[in-house]
């Protein structure tokens, strides 16, 4: 298991490849990558991601460990950035490896649902007109947790 919280970018290709290479017996590998999307079609200048340094690493490790136990994963990877990111920048990725595709998919969705609502990150949208809005948590994200 590897959990990395960093301001710097990450190399999606190299991370995906290294993760897959480290679990040759796994059969099924799923990755999810989150990208800063310009939700307002041209209005977003940057996304600022704040986090709680003393808590983030251990919260993510606990989530990853739970995914590994529940789905008997061969391995799991979580990388999450913080700081100022521009549209198109990659915010985070998770990767899961399991014997069968169903477990790898479910574990990756579980990780994402928890990262959305239980990992100590907060996003602020900086808009072209000078506005800066904290992204509100979505009811749908909170609801997504209930299926696990």
């Amino acid at each position: 298991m590897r959990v990395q919280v960093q301001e710097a970018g990450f190399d999606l290709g190299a991370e995906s490849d290294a993760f897959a290479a480290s679990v040759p017996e796994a059969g099924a590998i799923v990755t999810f990558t989150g990208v800063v999307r310009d939700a307002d079609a041209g209005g977003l200048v940057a996304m600022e991601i704040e986090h709680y340094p003393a808590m983030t690493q251990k919260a993510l490790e606990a989530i990853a460990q739970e995914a590994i136990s529940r789905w008997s994963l061969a391995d799991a990877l979580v990388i999450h950035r913080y700081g100022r990111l521009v549209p198109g920048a990659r915010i985070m990725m998770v990767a899961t490896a399991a014997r069968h595709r169903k477990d790898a998919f479910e574990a990756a969705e579980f990780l994402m649902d928890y990262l959305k609502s239980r990992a100590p990150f907060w996003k602020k949208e900086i808009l072209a007109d000078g506005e800066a809005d904290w992204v509100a948590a979505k009811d749908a994200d909170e609801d997504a947790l209930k299926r696990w």
Partner: protein
Amino acid sequence: MMDIVYFAWVRERIGLPREQVETSAATVADLVTELAAREERYAAAFADLSALRVALDQELSDFDASLAGVREVAFFPPMTGG
């Protein structure tokens, strides 16, 4: 002495990221009542507890929880990671 940390709009509304307070509050709710009574900016930040989350020593908790033995209390809005 207890460390209190604030994130996102809670930090902005209160105007600081961290402070130390002398408190004998037994629970998180008691601590919130003490803080909200201090100044308008605290009252504003703590006006709607359903819009807030709390972590005790970096573990998610709730407003009923005891503060016994706790060194760091964090207040923040619902998280928006991923």
